[in-house]
């Protein structure tokens, strides 16, 4: 038997599955080892049935539907009868603009920052309670955030897309957010500091100026000139204007220096917004019948477990330690593609050729196709 499949079987003999709520209203789908097709339209009456399926078929990938159906195993949407769907956010390294230049670990760290931004939005702006949010490491290159709240269950996909647009800042109209006022010849911007995007932008502007103020003049000017459309003169003017008194005015919601602020807005919006999808693909959240990885199942391309992360423990969560299920007995592998990685708090630097490594690393390397069994 194939090494990976054997290891997965060992796990599925006694797995730790977090069963989704409304368990029997979901559609389940699986991809088996050495197969390309997805087995879809499967439903389970009991949890034991699902566990039995996992044990018997040992899937490389296991999914369930974010939607609830009257007949989850029917083949067409019409027969399935959609009853509602969880609100799910999919944060993936592929959505980050410079993901290609990052190592696996760097990418995961970058996605974690997006996750923290997302959670702040969901709690502060959307008013969800911490107990309504459920976070999972996807086992691959990101995190999923599930929202459990009965008001959002029957939202359609256009409405969900509006939520995504809010989180990503898409369609943000600066004229609506920032109201310019002319006071005695000088243009001032008045900002409502109470909530919404307006407050987030204001906070970002204040933070940005505070950072600039702390820098040496030369460095500050250089930083300002990195912004598109800011020349030497504007940069110097802005720097010189940032007196303590000016900062007090800014914090009160009166932003002088309107021209300069308008120029820094765009890059700041990018920093504030959550990266939920790339230019080419559409957000998962808006899809009201999508499949999502089954919590507690294994990811066939890494061997990591789809693992729950407590909202207040995100900072400490280490995917390459906390999502590992395999043991550390030594396994001989043949490395085809050299790679470096830190797993279970150990640094590994693997060169081409045969190596003896802990089982969990062997699973990862083989799943990622960096190595074969030796």
């Amino acid at each position, binding site marked *: 038997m194939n090494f990976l499949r054997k290891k997965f079987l060992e796990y599925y003999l006694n797995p730790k599955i977090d069963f989704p709520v409304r368990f029997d209203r979901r559609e389940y789908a699986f991809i088996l080892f050495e197969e390309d097709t997805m087995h879809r339209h499967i439903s389970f009456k009991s949890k034991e049935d699902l566990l039995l399926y996992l044990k018997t078929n040992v899937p490389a990938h296991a999914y369930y539907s974010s939607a609830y159906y009257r007949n989850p195993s029917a083949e067409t949407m019409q027969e399935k009868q959609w009853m509602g769907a969880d609100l799910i956010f999919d944060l993936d390294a592929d959505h980050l603009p410079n993901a290609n230049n990052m190592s696996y670990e760097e990418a995961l760290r970058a996605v974690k920052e997006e996750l923290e931004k997302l959670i702040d939005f969901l709690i502060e702006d959307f008013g969800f309670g911490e107990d309504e949010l459920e976070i999972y490491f996807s086992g691959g290159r990101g995190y999923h955030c599930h929202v459990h709240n009965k008001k959002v269950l029957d939202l359609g996909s256009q409405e969900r897309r509006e939520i995504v647009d809010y989180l990503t800042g898409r369609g943000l109209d600066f004229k609506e957010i920032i109201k310019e006022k002319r006071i005695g010849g000088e243009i001032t911007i008045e900002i409502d500091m109470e909530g*919404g995007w307006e407050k987030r932008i204001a906070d970002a502007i204040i933070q940005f100026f505070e950072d600039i103020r702390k820098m040496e003049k030369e460095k500050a000017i250089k930083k300002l000139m990195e912004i598109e459309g800011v020349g030497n003169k504007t940069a110097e003017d802005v720097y010189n204007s940032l007196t303590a008194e000016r900062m007090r005015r800014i914090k009160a919601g009166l932003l002088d220096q309107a021209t300069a602020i308008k120029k820094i807005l765009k890059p700041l919006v990018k920093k504030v917004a959550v990266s939920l999808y790339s230019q080419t693909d559409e957000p998962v959240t808006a899809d009201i019948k999508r499949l999502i990885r089954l919590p507690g199942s294994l990811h066939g391309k890494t061997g990591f477990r789809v693992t729950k992360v407590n909202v207040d423990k995100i900072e400490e969560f280490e995917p390459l330690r906390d999502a590992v299920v395999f043991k550390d007995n030594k396994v001989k592998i043949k490395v085809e593609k050299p790679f470096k990685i830190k797993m279970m708090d150990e640094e590994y630097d693997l060169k081409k050729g045969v190596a003896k490594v802990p089982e969990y690393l062997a699973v990862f390397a083989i799943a990622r196709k960096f190595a074969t069994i030796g």
Partner: protein
Amino acid sequence: MDLFKLAKYPFIAEAKEWVKNEKVSIDEILFDEIYERARVRGIERVRQAFERGFISNVALLNEIDCMMEIFSYPIARMIVVAIDNDYLLRRYALAEAKKAYEGLKEEEFEFIQMIAKEFDIELDGNKIHFVDYLKYAPTWDIKWKLVNKKLKAGYVFIRKNEVARILQEAIRKKIYNELVNLFAPPEVKKAFKDEIMEIRNKLILKQKKEEIRKGEIKYEDFPPCMQSLISAIKSGLNVPHVGRFTIVTFLNAIGQSVDEILKLFSSSPDFNEEKTRYQIEHITGRISGTIYATPKCDTIRTWGLCNATEECRGIRHPLIFYKRKRRRK
């Protein structure tokens, strides 16, 4: 609630209850002379909705005025259902909703709150729950996009006339859904025989005119942004809201009918005919009066929908691209 309020908002549950308690039979309503005023006003509601998209107010000086006004509403509904034309159903539902909007704008907050409650909308002073906001707000208009509103702890801050606008949509939806499931008693066709015939004929004429209006349209002449929007929609990809908005304004500007635009969207994974039709008709001014302009290149770029080619050089508006290409032929 007093009779004057019920006359202004005859669609609310309490008004329906009042009509029921009056115990007037269908025959009396349709043929008895003392209800002649209600019948005249009923047909006026339908005519104004069809011809102008709006129903005017009448003076309500005493309780009899109110009574006639309240009765005119179920009469109008029966006529609309008897004519049996989906365009008219939608146009009538919107006209009634707009009439309500004009009234609600001027009402006290307490009263608005009460109406909101009837629609299960969580309204708390000048704040509305974001889920209710998303269900009813015209978010295809950039001003109404959630991202441009103050959202805090689950509630969107809105002004009184904005609440009224949201209620307008809730009312329109409710009236339309009721009409779709309503059957007109056969006596209605007898009582309003001439009027029903007249409006039916006008509807047919209108449809014919629309067919003539559209000329020959060439997809190859579309600017690249519109071409890729169309192919994305046709292949069933989820196209963002602003993308849908953009393509609808464009197709409308070059003379496509609502039905043709609707056909384009029918391959969308979440296609909902009623909703899509309503949005198209709104954007194209068919029922709202306001025709939304096709966004200029700058805007399309900001929305991340631009994929300019060499041919776009020097062009600032997608319609200019299309017109230039056509002229060259």
